[in-house]
């Protein structure tokens, strides 16, 4: 093999790489927050007494978890315009990532909610707290606290999977990598550098998510488990 690596050819494009990394983070954070919101709503549907709500949330979770993100992305990006709803590449990317993360979060949050002992709910009822208040102030915070590690690793996996949205040309790190390698024909170097940046993003997200846990779950902090 007589190949000389020339990383300088790639590092010349550093502003593009930085912008790509920022965009990847922005996509991920939006999908994370919106996906968690869907997850909370989805989980409360999954455990609701209404059969219809349970069935809808269950179908959503199963469909999303058993089809590839790439196909979901194509459905949003190419399929929705056929229904008259035209999305930009970034909108389609964020929508697909949110839709995807929502389903995984639903299952994780549901597991958290179900892990809360019935006696907590009975105690709240006996104190005259309404069902909604019990859910919002008693069950949900403790449930989220318990499954937070699972949520956090799911979010990191989602950030990595977001590289797929480059397939429709959404402007994030992988798409910029592709653009750079089409200009300088240094594919290996470009993707090695991209891999390194993603590795950095993975650690950054882990630190950020740990910081969020530190602030959000003071009880965990007191127990020394964060």
């Amino acid at each position, binding site marked *: 093999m007589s190949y000389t690596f020339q990383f300088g050819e790639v590092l010349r494009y550093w502003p593009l790489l930085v912008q790509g990394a920022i965009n990847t983070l922005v996509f991920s954070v939006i999908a994370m927050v919106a996906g968690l919101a869907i997850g909370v709503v989805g989980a409360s549907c999954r455990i609701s007494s209404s059969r219809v709500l349970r069935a809808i949330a269950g179908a959503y979770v199963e469909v999303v978890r058993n089809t590839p993100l790439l196909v979901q992305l194509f459905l949003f990006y190419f*399929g929705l315009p056929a*229904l008259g709803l035209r999305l930009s590449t970034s909108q389609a990317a964020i929508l697909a990532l949110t839709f995807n993360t929502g389903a995984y979060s639903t299952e994780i949050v549901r597991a958290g909610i179900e892990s809360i002992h019935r006696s907590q709910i009975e105690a709240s009822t006996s104190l005259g707290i309404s069902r909604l208040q019990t859910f919002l102030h008693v069950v949900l915070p403790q449930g989220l606290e318990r499954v937070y590690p699972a949520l956090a690793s799911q979010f990191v996996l989602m950030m*990595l999977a977001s590289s797929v949205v480059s397939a429709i040309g959404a402007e994030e790190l992988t798409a910029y990598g592709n653009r750079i*390698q089409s200009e300088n024909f240094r594919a290996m170097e470009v993707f090695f550098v991209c891999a390194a940046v993603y590795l950095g993003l993975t650690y950054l997200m882990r630190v950020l998510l740990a910081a969020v846990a530190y602030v959000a779950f003071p009880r965990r902090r007191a127990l020394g488990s964060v």
Partner: protein
Amino acid sequence: MRTFTSHDILFLLQAARWTLALSLLAFVGGGLGGAILAVGRISRVRALRSLASLYIQVVQGTPLLIQLFIWYFGISLLGADLSPIVAAAIALTLYSSAFFAEIWRGAIQSIAKGQWESASSLGLTRFETLWYVILPQSLRPALPPTVGFMVQIVKNTSLAALVGFVELARAGQLVNNITFQPLPVFACVAVIYFAICFPLSALSRWLERRTHGHRQLVRGT
């Protein structure tokens, strides 16, 4: 431009065979690699442990798509013909082996330490203990997440479409390019993926309930 017909559905189903073939390759290759890595992770040699752990960290900390690009372009650097299926099989194998390693290491370490100690007090070597005592017992906890990860593998094969390998997702793109009916085409593609993945998910869940009696958290994208 023409309409989406049963002929196209047949084409998609034929392409789905490549999705299955690639999944199988990744499962077998990833399983072998994962077994080796899992043993490395619990090895008493520190260098082996760190090496295996480093490999897993890097593979799990970078996107599969980037790994796939590296192999796809890397193979062409070695002077071989650009062969998307080889690149996809290698990338998926190496990616899956990192995840299998972690799943199986967890299963091995879930076996009580006393089993190791009593086996060694009976004069069994470390390898004999692992092979005859630990592995048969760790099969039970390992099975549900292993089947669960097979679902991830099937879904991950769709990335091979992005280096031009004509499996199910790429076939969907091709049919869409001719018919320009994205909604029915990609819905059909999604249904075929679902038909492959859902039974595996259900099996994983059933196995999980049988082993633990409570639900696990299945992760992945």
